[in-house]
């Protein structure tokens, strides 16, 4: 990653235009050519420095639902529990965390009522209680990670 890559990452965290030739527009702002910009974004995605480039959607606004949930997985069964939970296509992310509630995952469904169904099935298959923590309110953030 060089200085130009840093500029691209910082610039494109603020947004990307909707117009006929958006790469050309951004490239001009950054003092690059359109071809350079497209190649660099392609490389940044391929190398894993960027995990995504494109529109980021709001699940609830699309009629779907999201929740954050956690379980207390016994250490000796941790990997099995992770396997069961990960096997649900509705589970988008799953992280091990340093807490008695040691496994935290995001469930996303196309309809709000399916969240409860998925939680029930996870409870049945793992034999564990799922702590459901759907958001009550979301506060506006304006984070940008400086590259």
């Amino acid at each position: 990653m060089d200085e130009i890559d840093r500029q691209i990452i910082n610039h494109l965290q603020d947004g990307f235009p909707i117009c006929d030739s958006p790469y050309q527009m951004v490239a001009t702002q950054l003092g690059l050519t359109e071809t350079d910009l497209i190649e660099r974004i392609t490389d940044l995605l391929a190398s894993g420095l960027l995990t995504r480039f494109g529109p980021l959607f709001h699940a609830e606004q699309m009629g779907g639902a999201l929740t954050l949930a956690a379980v207390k997985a016994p250490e000796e069964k941790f990997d099995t529990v992770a396997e069961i939970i990960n096997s649900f296509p509705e589970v988008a992310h799953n992280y091990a965390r340093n807490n008695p509630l040691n496994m935290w995952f995001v469930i996303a469904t196309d309809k709000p009522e399916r969240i409860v169904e998925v939680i029930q099935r996870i409870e049945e298959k793992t034999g564990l209680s799922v702590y459901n923590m759907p958001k009550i309110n979301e506060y506006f953030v304006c984070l940008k990670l400086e590259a």
Partner: protein
Amino acid sequence: MKIDEIDRQIITATQAGLPLTPQPYKTIAQQLGLSVETVMKRMQVMQETGVIRRIGVVPNHYRLGYKFNGMTVWNIADEHVDELGQQVGQLDFVSHCYHRPRHEPEWSYNLFAMVHSKTENGVKEQIETIAELLGEYNQGQDVLFSTRILKKTGLRIGKSRV
């Protein structure tokens, strides 16, 4: 906003990413058999109404050197949580900030704020900054670090399941 079948086609076509072609909206339009004007107009409306949060890049935190990503959790009296949550969200190192339900007695935290730093000390300072902002309203706190990513596929809506 109520999205229709055309919006849904555009969402499905772009949820893996925007085409890396000089005219990406035209590429999408051609894939879907729509006019480029329709695609751009629909995406503009979806952005204005919040269906699209933003168009842009998502960097890999770890790869940019942000190795300390903490989920800070706080116990705040419910009547103050909205006002304080808004203030915490404004801090420039907080990437997500939510009010969530408690699960007493094991889990008494109702305000969640994700923080990111390149150093362990940096995270400590960020937590202190939040604690100072919350002041006397802070009735308890903890920070959870991810020790392992078990799954990360991102959100997908499937054509067949809609």
